[in-house]
């Protein structure tokens, strides 16, 4: 009896290795993709061009020691392209560490980003905290750049976003999960940073505002900064007031913004922005003369600029701030309220109330 039991147990144990063995793939048999680019190829049969930057790992991490190769293939869809790319490399592709997805400018303008999003959100090994951006002039050139300062492949582009590396005031950070939300949420539209090449590095100081399909508006760096401050409350930004002989520049350490909708048939969107910081550049003894006045003057200047941006975005017919979402949240579930909002939005008025508070001149006397 016991011998029979042992025999059965042994048999089961020998079957065990066959169970999950296929999944086991050692780390050195995997090719880490560090950035992925999607382009439009102008060939109607194989419209999608997928470029992958693959890391060549080394046990030593040093400045400029990052090695990588770029592989590109055209196919009828992104999924097919990636499958096809596997036949050009010697190891299994691993997207687990791919944190940068670059959509070519042409792809977004011609085809929209819905197909790319479908693929990105379905793959289980793609992380939702990845950064998504628009590549200019195309995604391939952004993917294939190998900056000299990189310690390990893909590091440079990744550190440009968020607060991980540089805390740039002009860089909009859009994560994949946020993009996905903005793609499907009624009354809230996506914003994507635009990355281009600049000498031996990346330049990410512009943003594109999209509707649910395609790009509607490209913002210049100053507008991107304003968008960052009013929509995303990014800290460590800057606020300049034109003045003679030198501009007064406030380094904002904290920025808060809050949106309020007022008025039923003739709505006014009030954006309250609170900016705290210290003067980084100003004519001497400016603060002592009129501290409160300077704060008000800077606030007024900021409000004017921001309102200009808001009207520009409104006229493009997009809504990255989520005014529509606010409207839907404020009004109870009456029928046709979304249609009503769509009618109201082109005529909405904006009011930016900026509360600038200067903490000091940054000097010790």
């Amino acid at each position: 009896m016991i011998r029979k039991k042992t025999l059965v147990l042994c048999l089961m144990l020998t079957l065990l290795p066959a169970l999950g063995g296929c999944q086991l793939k050692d780390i050195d048999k995997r090719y880490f993709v560090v950035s992925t680019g999607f382009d439009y190829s102008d060939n109607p049969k194989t419209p999608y061009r997928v470029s992958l930057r693959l890391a060549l790992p080394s046990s030593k991490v040093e400045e400029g020691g990052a090695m990588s190769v770029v592989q590109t293939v055209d196919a009828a869809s992104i999924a097919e392209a990636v499958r096809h790319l596997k036949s050009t490399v010697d190891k299994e592709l691993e997207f687990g560490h791919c944190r940068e997805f670059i959509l070519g400018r042409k792809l977004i303008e011609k085809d929209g980003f819905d197909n790319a999003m479908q693929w990105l959100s379905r793959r289980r090994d793609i992380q939702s905290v990845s950064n998504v951006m628009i590549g200019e002039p195309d995604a391939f050139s952004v993917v294939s750049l190998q900056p000299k300062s990189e310690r390990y492949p893909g590091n440079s582009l990744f550190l440009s976003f968020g607060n991980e590396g540089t805390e740039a005031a002009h860089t909009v950070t859009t994560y994949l999960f946020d993009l996905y939300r903005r793609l499907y949420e009624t009354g809230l539209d996506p914003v994507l940073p635009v990355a281009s090449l600049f000498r031996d590095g990346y330049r990410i100081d512009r943003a594109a505002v999209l509707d649910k399909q395609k790009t509607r508006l490209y913002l210049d760096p100053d507008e991107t900064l304003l968008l960052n401050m009013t929509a995303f409350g990014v800290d460590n930004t800057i606020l300049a007031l034109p003045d003679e002989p030198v501009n007064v520049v406030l380094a904002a350490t904290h920025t808060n913004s809050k949106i309020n909708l007022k008025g039923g048939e003739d709505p006014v969107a009030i954006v309250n922005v609170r900016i705290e910081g210290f003067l980084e550049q100003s004519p001497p003894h400016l603060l002592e003369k009129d501290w409160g006045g300077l704060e008000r003057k800077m606030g007024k200047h900021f409000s004017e600029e921001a309102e200009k941006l808001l009207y520009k975005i409104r006229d493009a017919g997009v809504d990255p701030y989520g005014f529509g979402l606010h409207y839907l949240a404020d009004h109870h579930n009456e029928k046709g309220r979304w249609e009503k909002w769509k009618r109201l939005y082109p005529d909405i008025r904006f009011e930016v109330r900026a509360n600038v508070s200067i903490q000091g001149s940054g000097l010790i006397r």
Partner: protein
Amino acid sequence: MLEKIKEILGSPADFTAETMDNGYAELQICFFPGMCDMDQLKDGIIIPFSYRFDPDEFRRMLHTSIGFMKDVPEERWVDYLLKGYILLEYEGEVFVFRAIRRMQTQPDQTQVEASLQGPQSAFTENLDLNLTLVRNLYNVPELTVENFEPQNQSKSKIALLYDRTKRNETTLEEVRKRLRRLDDGLLLSAGQLAKQLTQAKYRLFPIAQVTERPDRLSIHLNKGKLAILLDGSRFAILLPVHFFDFMYAMDDHYEPSWMSRFLIGLRYISMMLTLMLPALYISIVSYNPEVFRVQLAFTIDGSRAAVPYPSFIEVLLMLFMIEALIEASLRLPRSVGSTAATVGGLILGQAAQQAGLVSSIMIIVTSVVAISNFVIPNSTFSYFIRILKYAFVLVAVFAGLVGVVVGLFTLVVYLCNMRSFGEPYFALFQSKANKASD
């Protein structure tokens, strides 16, 4: 009498059987000289019988002194002889005289459970001395000692200790029953006795604690639990115990509170590390490399490039080496021990990595596993943890990170299901519900 004894014992060389005659009376005496205290023999029997001989006084002494036992049944004579008693026949009556040679008169130094500031004395291999040590520390009238003399080949005395007012009656009855039912092989050490008492052979965790510290035993008694002392063993058995008792060093009582809390936390972290780290290494390297930060992933990737075997072979290889090293240095003489550690730890580890047999991260994993294992204060428990980590390695090889998580869950379920002599093993607090009220 002497003929009967010789019939049973044969005539071993270390046995003395004499008939003494002082001119007035005859005395038959037999004993094992090696097991008897010769001074006691001389003072108690030889002197009164030889040059201080007075027939009345000698007779009176035999009948009244507490050193002499009368009316011992014939079949027990040999048992007493074998324990170091002296058997004598005077005027047709047989007496047993207690003159057992005491090997130890001093408490031992702690060796296994060292403590920085706690008591340094440990149990000895003498039961009477051990009882003295316990009585000194736990000096209350309620301390009860029950003696058991199992009819096995060793016949070592067993003492069951408990606090009469605090003990749990059902547990006590269960332990008594098991002590009476011991098998009749050789019983050599407390660890062996603990194994027999806890019965189940394939349990994954110990349910009785073996200790050499009288202070730990006293605290245990004070909690209303039981302790068992075995003659000839310098370890006591504590039961019932909980999972958390094993992670408790006696220093935790004596050190500042913050420090001891920190150390307890450290021990649990170490336990988890030594249990899970090899399994985590396998499952992350071979199944889910995205768990690492990207730098670490590339570094491991780079350092694994030269390794020819899959990650689990690498892990098993290194674990085998470290286990062999521990096992070898455990039984080495102290003078050679440090050499083994140097050869094994430094040279082998470094060389294995340079030869491309294992990755450099694996060396770190192995050393963390080995060091963390020694942080566990109880050696029995650390043995169980040591073997249990292979179960996790096995699961990780076939099922990856998911397997490890499911394995950990299963382990917790198993622990919750375990009972130590009727008490829940994984309980944070001791149950007081069925405490005896008398």
